[in-house]
Every structure is written in C-alpha cells, then in structure tokens.
C-alpha cells in the first residue's frame, strides 16, 4: 500500500505532539483521514469538522494538487505521496472599504487619471479575478500586466516545470527557476511585482473532469494554452459557465487574438467548428516560435481582459485579429455567431464537457483502416526484415525503435532513410552519415517520385509524430514497406549517440 507523508503546518503542530510529519499507509484520502482520526484524534479534529468536511482555515494539497476531502469523495492514492496541510492564518478588521490607500493611489496613478477609469475602475479591478490557462508564452506577459494593473486575484493553471527552452519567451520565469513548477515561479515573480495581488497557483492539467470547477467563479479567462484539445475544452467550459474568454494563439510568425463567450458574441467553435487533423499543425517545440510574438499577443489578451473587467472600450468579440509579425501587418476578419454552433447556437448539441483528446484525434479512437496497412506476410524484399520486426503504434502506423534501426544499419541492410523535418532542424542533428536524406513533410507529397515504393523505408523526424503522418501517407500511396522511427532523432541522440544534440 502506498505511503503518504502528511506534512503538518506549524500552527497545528501542537495538536500532533509537535511533529512536522506523519507517515500513513493508505490507498485513499478518506482512508488516510480515518486512520488519522484514530491515531491522532486531536489533529484530525482540527482538520475536519464532525461531519467530515474540511474546516474553513484548512486546505489540503496532495502532491501539490488541491484536494477537498468533503467534496472529492474517496480520492484514490496510487503511489507514495505527500499530503501537505496548509492552515491559512488570516483575518481582518470588521467592515468593508471601497477606497484606495495612498500607496495604491500612487502606484496606479497613471491609469487612475485616464478618462473613465478613476478610483471606481481601480476598485473594480481590485475586486476582480482573472484565470490564466497556461503560465507560458502567452500567460507570462498577460499575467505580468494584469498584476501590474492591480487585478486583485490572478489564477494560473499549469502543470509544467520551467525548462531552459521556455525562457526565450516565458518571461515570468528566470534561469534560477529551472526545474521548478511554473505556477510557483510565476507566483513569486508576480508577488515581487505587486504584493497586493492574490496569486492563486493551480499546479494541475485542465481536464474535462476538473475544468468547470476550476473556471467557475472567475470573471475573465485568458487562454494561453498550446494545444487544440485544451483550446476547445476552455472554450466549451467558458460558454457553459458564461465566462468571457480572451483568446490568443501563436504559430511561428503569426498570431491571433479575439474575445469569445460574451452573451451575444461568437465562440471559438463558431470560428473553427472542427479541429485540424491531429499532427497537421505542429506545436511550438517542433515548428518554433519567435519569442516576442506571444509577448505581443499575450498583452493584447491582457488588454481585452482589462477592458472586459472595466466595461470599457470596444472588445474584440466578433473580430479575429491576425498578426503577421514577418511583415508586421495586422488584419481583422469578422467572426459571426453561428446559429448552428454545437455549443453556443440556438439548438446546442454539446451541453456538457466531452473527451477533447478524442475530439481532436490526438488519441487513437477508431480501428485501423486495413486499406492503408502494410501486409506483413509478404516477406522481406529489400534485404532487411523491417516489416517483420516492426510493431504498430496506437494509430496503426508501423514503427521501429532506434535500437532496431541501429541493428539494421549495422547489418548493412538496404534502406531508404528519410528525414521529414525542416532544413534548420537538419542542421541541429541528422542521420546523414547513415544515408538519410532531407524531405520536409510539406515537400514529401510533391517529391514522392524520388523514393522507391518497393524498398524498405524508414521515416524519422524530431520525436516521431510528423514522421508517423508521413508513413500513413506513404502507406496509402503504395509504400507498403515504410515504417516510422519511434521517438525520432531525439531518441537516437538519447539512446544511441549521446554526443548528438537534442532539441
């Protein structure tokens, strides 16, 4: 049974015989609390009321994720975990005040003097809460400006840790934060900038199960996510909860921004009913992104959020703003509310959150199409046992791993080795020494005649997703003996040639 280390805060330690930590073997949160009630009744009574609900000053975090004993039911514990008890020590003078302190007046002076802003506007911001999905490229500039402007509560949802390759654009984080949870690093940065802001770090991945609870109660949501399943999830949750959504997205040199989810305005689905085929649009890590671009788009999202909170100006609702940073041109397209929209239309077919991974096709959902599968009983034709040693991925694409490729190469088997990445990626690392040739995915379709469909073919890219698409395409076009290199060249660098750079 997993062991849970229960961390006790200083203010409750006197109820646990002054111990900082207790170790309890259990497989559910409820079981843990029950054992605690027996072994440490005093401490247990300080954490939970008689009816089993958590006392108002207590918050419980299981491996950094907040859990609520009274609400979440029997939270399963599958591995050794840490349950941290946080007892909030707070309070305040009786009565409410709606005026600004002298310090606030000075801090926000330059915006207070704006026409139509004033003390009332500032108090409105102070009482407002904005939730940011993602503390990355878009979330960084947005959170910084919202904190600086005095938005009272800023929530950050992100389950990632800070990576060196994030720092060229994710300016909430610095070199000293490498490896730390992004939400923690972000909370520190924002507290330094403006200690009046109540930062709520939510170290979790947004899912269909937790999205409605996570988003409820916020005044505006800013979508800084980097993938389609999350984008549709956030859109749908905002529409269902009636929360305005400041949308933004970036790709290489292009950015987009708009506002969705207003009572009369369109939503993301009115603009894009269906997601693009999985893998067609590579993410930042494969396609690259200019660091300053999310800076521009993220600050536009923050501007829209502030306008929504203040009820000022004309929002981007109904318009999609498109920025081409290459030519530095802003264009605008009109987005109308679609009466047929499955979620915000007149007869919605989506009335709750769905499985967005499946909706966006990122997970295998359908049985393999036999028409595009290789027939592995044909036997070797090109001198290797490529198809025989290949396995299939969850989408039915045949694949080999880097060790298998090395074995084939060592045996001197005849092989077409094709790199479907971009030229700048080839410069970082390549398998040219083994005869690999570069055919970027976008050119593959025009250059098929350069390849021999009867030969054994291995396709690779950075991590194996673009090449899987290429293999699917090749299989459908008569290349029965083509396979994907699982894990891509980065796996080769990891397992076969540690001297090769990874990216």
């Amino acid at each position, binding site marked *: 049974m997993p062991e849970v280390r229960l961390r006790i*805060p*200083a*203010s*409750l*330690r*006197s*109820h646990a015989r*002054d111990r900082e930590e207790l170790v309890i073997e259990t497989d559910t949160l409820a079981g843990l609390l029950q054992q605690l009630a027996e072994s440490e009744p005093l401490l247990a009574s*300080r954490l939970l009321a008689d009816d089993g609900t958590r006392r*108002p*000053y207590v918050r419980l975090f299981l491996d950094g994720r907040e859990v609520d004993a009274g609400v979440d039911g029997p939270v399963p514990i599958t591995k050794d975990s840490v349950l941290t008890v*946080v*007892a*909030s*020590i*707070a*309070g*305040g*003078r*009786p*009565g*409410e*005040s709606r005026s600004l*302190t*002298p310090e606030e007046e000075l801090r926000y002076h330059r915006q207070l003097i704006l026409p139509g802003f004033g003390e009332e506007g500032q108090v409105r911001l*102070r009482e407002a809460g904005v939730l940011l999905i993602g503390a990355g490229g878009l979330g960084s500039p947005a959170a910084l400006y919202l904190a600086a402007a005095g938005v*009272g*509560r800023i929530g950050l949802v992100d389950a990632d840790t800070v990576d060196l390759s994030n720092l060229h654009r994710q300016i909430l984080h610095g070199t000293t934060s490498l490896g730390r949870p992004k939400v923690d690093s972000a909370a520190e940065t924002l*507290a330094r900038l403006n*200690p*009046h*802001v*109540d930062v709520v770090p939510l170290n979790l991945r947004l899912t269909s199960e937790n999205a409605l609870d996570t988003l409820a109660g916020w005044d505006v949501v800013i979508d800084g996510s980097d993938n389609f399943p999350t984008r549709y999830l956030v859109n749908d949750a905002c529409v269902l909860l009636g929360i305005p959504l400041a949308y933004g997205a970036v790709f290489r040199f292009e950015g987009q921004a708009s506002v969705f989810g207003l009572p009369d305005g369109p939503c993301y689905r009115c603009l894009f009913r269906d997601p693009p085929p999985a893998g067609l649009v590579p993410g930042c890590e494969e396609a690259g992104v200019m660091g300053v671009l999310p800076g521009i788009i993220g600050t536009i999202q923050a501007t829209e959020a502030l306008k929504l909170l203040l009820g000022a100006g004309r929002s981007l609702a109904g318009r999609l703003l498109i920025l081409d940073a290459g030519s530095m041109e802003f264009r605008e397209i009109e987005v109308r509310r679609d009466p047929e929209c499955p979620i915000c239309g007149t007869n919605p077919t989506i009335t709750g959150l769905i499985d967005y991974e499946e909706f966006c096709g990122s997970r295998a959902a359908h049985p393999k199409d036999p028409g595009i599968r290789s027939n592995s009983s044909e036997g070797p034709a090109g001198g290797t046992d490529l198809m025989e040693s290949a396995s299939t991925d969850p989408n039915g694409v045949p694949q080999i791993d880097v060790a298998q490729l090395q074995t084939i190469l060592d045996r001197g088997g005849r092989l077409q080795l094709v790199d479907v990445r971009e030229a700048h990626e080839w410069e970082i690392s390549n398998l040219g020494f083994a005869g690999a040739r570069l055919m970027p995915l976008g050119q593959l379709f025009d250059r098929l005649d350069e390849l021999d469909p009867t030969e054994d073919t291995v396709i690779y890219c950075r991590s194996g997703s673009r090449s899987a698409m290429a293999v699917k395409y090749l299989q459908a076009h008569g290349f029965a003996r083509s396979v994907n290199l699982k894990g891509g060249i980065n796996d080769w660098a990891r397992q076969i040639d540690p001297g090769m750079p990874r990216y």
Partner: protein
Amino acid sequence: MAADLRDRIARHVESAYPEEACGALFGSRSGRARPIVTSALPLVNRAARRTEGFRVGPRELEELCRARQAAGESLLGFYHSHPDRRPEPSSADLESAVPGLWQVTVPVIGGRSGARRAWHAEEGAECPR
C-alpha cells in the same frame, strides 16, 4: 505578556497604519490557562488588500517557527491590528482562527494603538489586558 513586548507590538502596528499588521507570538506552553509570551515577531502581511485584512505566508511562518523552536519556544498564537476599528474579532477573524492558538487584536485609531484584546477561538475565552 511583558510590557516591552506590548510596546513592540504597538510600534509595529502603528508603523503599518493604515494597513493591517500581523505577527506571531512565541513562548512556553506549560499547561497553564494563560501561556507566557516571550517573543512577539512581525510577519509580512500578504493579503491582497492590506488595508482590509491580513494573511500570513505559510512558508514564512514555517521558517520562523523552526527557528524559534530551536530556541526553545513554541507558537502560541498571532497578533494583528484593526486600523480605525474596534478590537473585537471580525467574522473573518473568527472563521480562520485556528483552535488552540491565541489571537491578539489591536485597534489603531488614526495611527495610535489602543487597548488590545486577546481571545481564544475554541473556548471563546476573552481576557482584556
């Protein structure tokens, strides 16, 4: 609580006016009804609106408690100010008061501290000092 500690708390809450100030009380918990306070240490007020309330950072409190424990003191409770209000506990105070710990509230009217109140969440005991 010794007079010099009371003065220290008064100076701290007056200097923070019009914002609320907060701090922790340490001493010996020797089984008596009223513990003896031997240290009163200021804490950073981390509330979003410091003129309206106070909030203690859990990490800061952990570190302080660890240091005081090494010096043989335990956490007895907290103090905080009520700028331009009476010292009676507010609803927010009562809601987040941890049972077993003492709370001392100090009114600060126009920048000058007044008569404090000490109270105890669980027993509801109150003893003006």
